C-alpha cells in the first residue's frame, strides 16, 4: 500500500480531478466524505480563508458545521463539486438553488481550496463547474458574498459577478477589526 505525501508541493503536476458530490454525483455524501471535508475546511480556516471561522479554529467546531452540509447534500437540497489530487480532497464548493418565488436563483457558498495548492487555478475550476451546474439547472441569477479585505473581488469579477451591496462592519474578525460583508451577483441569462 502506498500512502502519498501530504504535501501538494511534491506533486505540482499531478492531475486534479473534478467530482460531483451527492445523490447525482460520483462521490457519495457519506461520513467518509465528511471526514475529508472537515480536514480541508479546517486547513482553509486555519489559513485565514473566508469560510465561517477566524483562526485559531478547533476541528470539532468545523465538524459541527460539516454535518448539516453533508446532510443537505445527501438530501439533494444543495449540489457540490470536489477537487481531488493524489487521493486528497483539495477543493470544494457548493451551489444552493433557492425555492419558491426565488427558484430561478441560486447561491454559491463555501468555495475553498487547500492552502498548499493555492495559485494553480483550482478556485477557478470550482467556480466554472458550479456556474455550469447553475446553468444546467436553468438558474438565471446567482449570488454570493465575501468578507472584505481578502482581495477576492477581482477573482469573482472574472466570472461576471458585480457588487450590489454591502453590510458594513457586519463581520467581526477580532475586537476592533470589523469587516464588511460584500454581496455580488451574476447574470446567467443567455
Amino acid at each position, binding site marked *: *500500500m502506498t*500512502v*502519498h505525501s*501530504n504535501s501538494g508541493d511534491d506533486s505540482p503536476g499531478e492531475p486534479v*480531478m473534478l*467530482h460531483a458530490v451527492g445523490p447525482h454525483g460520483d*462521490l457519495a455524501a457519506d*461520513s*467518509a*466524505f*465528511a*471526514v*475529508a471535508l*472537515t*480536514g*480541508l475546511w479546517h486547513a482553509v480556516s486555519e489559513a485565514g480563508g473566508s469560510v465561517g471561522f477566524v483562526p485559531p479554529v*478547533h*476541528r*470539532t467546531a468545523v*465538524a*459541527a458545521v*460539516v*454535518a448539516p452540509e*453533508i446532510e443537505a447534500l445527501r438530501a439533494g437540497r444543495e449540489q457540490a463539486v*470536489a477537487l*481531488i489530487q*493524489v*487521493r*486528497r*480532497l483539495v477543493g470544494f464548493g457548493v451551489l444552493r438553488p433557492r425555492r419558491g418565488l426565488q427558484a430561478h436563483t441560486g447561491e454559491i457558498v463555501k468555495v475553498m481550496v487547500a492552502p498548499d495548492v493555492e495559485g494553480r487555478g483550482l478556485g477557478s475550476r470550482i467556480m466554472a463547474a458550479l456556474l455550469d451546474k447553475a446553468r444546467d439547472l436553468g438558474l438565471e441569477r446567482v449570488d454570493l458574498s465575501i468578507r472584505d479585505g481578502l482581495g477576492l473581488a477581482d477573482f469573482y469579477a472574472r466570472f461576471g459577478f458585480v457588487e450590489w451591496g454591502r453590510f458594513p462592519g457586519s463581520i467581526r474578525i477580532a475586537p476592533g477589526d470589523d469587516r464588511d460583508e460584500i454581496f455580488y451577483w451574476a447574470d446567467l441569462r443567455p
Partner: protein
Amino acid sequence: MPATVHASREYGSHVAVSERTLVLIKPDGVARALVGEVLSRIERKGLRLVALDLRTVTVEVAGEHYAEHEGKPFYDSLVDFITGGPLVAAVVEGPRAIPAFRQLAGGTDPVEKAATGSIRGDFGLETQFNLVHGSDSPESAAREIALWFPDL
C-alpha cells in the same frame, strides 16, 4: 497466541467463550473529551480492558487500518484525519466482546443508524463522525489487534 478466542471461563452453569476486540476512540472523540465516557460504558457492560494507550498514530498504521477505504478517491484525507490528533486504542475482552462493543457503539451513522443510548446515538448528534471504532469480526479483530498492539 490467537487473539480472537483465547480462553474459556465458567459463568454459572454454562461455559462462556471470551474473545477480544480492538476499540479506537478516534481523534474527534478524544478532542471532545469522551474518553472516560466510552471507557466507562465498556466497563459497565462487563467487558474488561486488556490494553489501553493514548497515542498519535503513524501514517503507516493509519493506512493499514483504513485499508477498507482504499477505494475512496480521497483516501489520503482519511489518513490525515486519523493521524491529525491523539486517539485512544484499547483491546477489550469478554464473552462476545466483538458484537457487544458494536452494540455499545451503535450504527455507523450517528443519527440514522445509531440508537439512543449507544455511544454514537448519544454523542454523535452534531457531527458526522462516528467517534469510535470496534472490530467487526473475529478476523478483523485479530488483524487489528496485531496492527495496533503487536506485542500483545
